[in-house]
């Protein structure tokens, strides 16, 4: 049986108190919000923090503010994000991403901040301790070899967050707070293309909120690929956001990819759309550009060449939905939800 290792537990009431505990405990302390990712990982000894600092009692992390755009506290559960009317009406991409994370039960516990900081995943890593020991561990944890790419010096575990690509396409920023002060980073800059050290967040920093820019003129969409539509981690995530003029000419566009790298990232596909209308040709051209940036590895479900090959088609789904095409039948086939 896999049991949790022992740990100290703190449940501060304020962000500053939590930051102080983190600063005092150093890197052996970790933050816990919903725990849906961290606790199973601790049972498999992926992380064995001496101290857990819970964010659940901090009310300041559960505040939403509407101003020019929307600010969402990092401790909102994913189902609270799904139930948020402003998100649903104005940031469809984020809503669709949050609604497709795991299952209802996990979304009731898992938080927005937790999904953004989700540990990277790999077939050779997300296994119990004994199994990993039997293969002499792997580069990401306790070992020296990457079993996916044996010549690789870098861990290639896959980023599996759904909300991050959606938020990147929407131009969101994240606020990080520590005893040293606070800073705001573009969401794409929160990530590094390294399966082990995948966040630019320092261990003493707390991700407190995500700020979305004003939605005027923007429409967005998120498409998630997985073997089983009901629930699974993504093996490809495509997020698109497009701002069009009244005549339908694209003024600005961003297309981000998830699950095909160790980080979610912005592609150059969006730039190809600027100044054009969302015609089938323009969509196909952008799709091909985005697919060329996808670098899936053989470390999760489904064939990696196929995952790369269908990225263009998924970009097409997202852009056609943004254009106003009725994509509901395709959506039900892929996601098993009407969304």
């Amino acid at each position, binding site marked *: 049986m896999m049991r949790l290792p022992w740990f100290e537990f703190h449940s501060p009431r304020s962000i500053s108190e939590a930051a102080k505990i983190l600063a005092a405990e150093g890197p052996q302390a970790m933050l816990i919000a919903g725990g849906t990712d961290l606790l199973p990982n601790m049972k498999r000894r992926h992380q064995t923090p001496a101290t857990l600092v819970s964010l659940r009692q901090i009310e300041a992390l559960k505040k939403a503010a509407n101003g020019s755009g929307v600010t969402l506290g990092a401790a909102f559960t994913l189902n609270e994000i799904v139930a948020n009317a402003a998100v649903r009406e104005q940031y469809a991409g984020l809503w669709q991403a949050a609604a497709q994370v795991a299952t209802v039960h996990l979304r009731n516990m898992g938080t927005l901040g937790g999904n953004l900081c989700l540990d990277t995943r790999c*077939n050779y890593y*997300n*296994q119990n301790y004994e*199994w990993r020991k039997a*293969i002499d561990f792997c580069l990401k944890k306790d070992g020296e*070899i990457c*079993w996916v790419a*044996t010549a690789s010096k870098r861990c290639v575990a896959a980023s599996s967050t759904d909300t991050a690509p959606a938020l990147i396409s929407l131009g969101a920023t994240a606020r990080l707070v520590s005893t040293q002060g606070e800073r705001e980073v573009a969401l794409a800059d929160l990530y590094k293309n390294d399966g082990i050290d995948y966040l630019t967040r320092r261990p003493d920093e707390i991700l407190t909120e995500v700020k979305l820019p004003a939605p005027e003129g923007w429409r967005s969409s998120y498409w998630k690929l997985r*073997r*089983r*539509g*009901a*629930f*699974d981690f993504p093996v490809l995530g495509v997020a698109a956001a497009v701002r069009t003029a009244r005549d339908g000419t694209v003024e600005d566009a961003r297309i981000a990819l998830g699950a095909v790298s160790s980080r979610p990232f912005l592609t150059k596909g969006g730039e190809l759309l600027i100044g054009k209308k969302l015609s089938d040709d323009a969509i196909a051209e952008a799709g091909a550009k985005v697919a060329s940036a996808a670098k899936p590895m*053989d470390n999760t*479900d*489904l*064939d990696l*060449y*196929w995952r790369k*090959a*269908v990225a263009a*088609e998924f970009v097409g789904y997202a852009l056609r939905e943004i254009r106003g095409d009725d994509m509901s039948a395709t959506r039900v*086939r*892929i996601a*098993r*939800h009407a969304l």
Partner: protein
Amino acid sequence: METVPENVGFALGRVFRADDPGKLMSFREAIVLAEEKFGTLGSVGSYSPPRSPGRYKGAGVGPSPAYSYTACVVEAEVDRKTGWITVPKVWIAHDIGRAVNPVSARGQVEGSVYMGLGEALMEEQVFRRLPPKLSNALVHKIPSLLEYKSLTSLDMPEVFTELVEDPDPNCPFGAKEVGQGPLLPVMPAVANAVYDAIGVRIDELPITPDKVLAALEKKARGEAPRIGPESFPDVPYPEPMLVPTPWEGGDGNSVNTPLRRPLKKEALA
């Protein structure tokens, strides 16, 4: 109720005197009274299938006097650009002999559809060989049940179930099996539905979208649109045992006595 067992009637959850239905009690009350008097109510029965006429090695395996049959129709939608397969509806009819408990029997049939679709579309045990300079060992590529996907209730299609009841005289109460028989036609029906939709044959399970797309590419190149094993494995099977069917004049016994051990490869060549 002061009467003999022959005069007791049961209806609508009540137990009553047949000659005077006004004298009654609830079924539950009757059970409580009976258990107070006799202890736990139960009965023991047994059934032995008729002896198989066969007198050859292996004749004792599967001593069923009758076999169930199932027909299955699968509706499939296949996306030509991605190979994505969707199964919106399944119709399945199972010849069960007699359904002793029709609700459970339907559950078994629908469970078989679930199991069959998982086998047809998702479940896969994949191995991967480590490079020779490491250990050359075969390791699981997807080594946990989290990654061994089966359907959930959300992934299930609409299932239309029909029980075909034709009591079999050799079986207890005329009832045949509904264990995993209805599973068998589901996978070939999915494969045939995919073929019917886009004209490609996937000869191995699971039928995944990458195989469909690869088969479509072969078709576009003018090659045989099939994906799966290219040849039959080279296995030194022993000489087969021949048991003629009744219409071939067979009495259940084998007409030859083959060697028990597989032939050596040299002997075959």
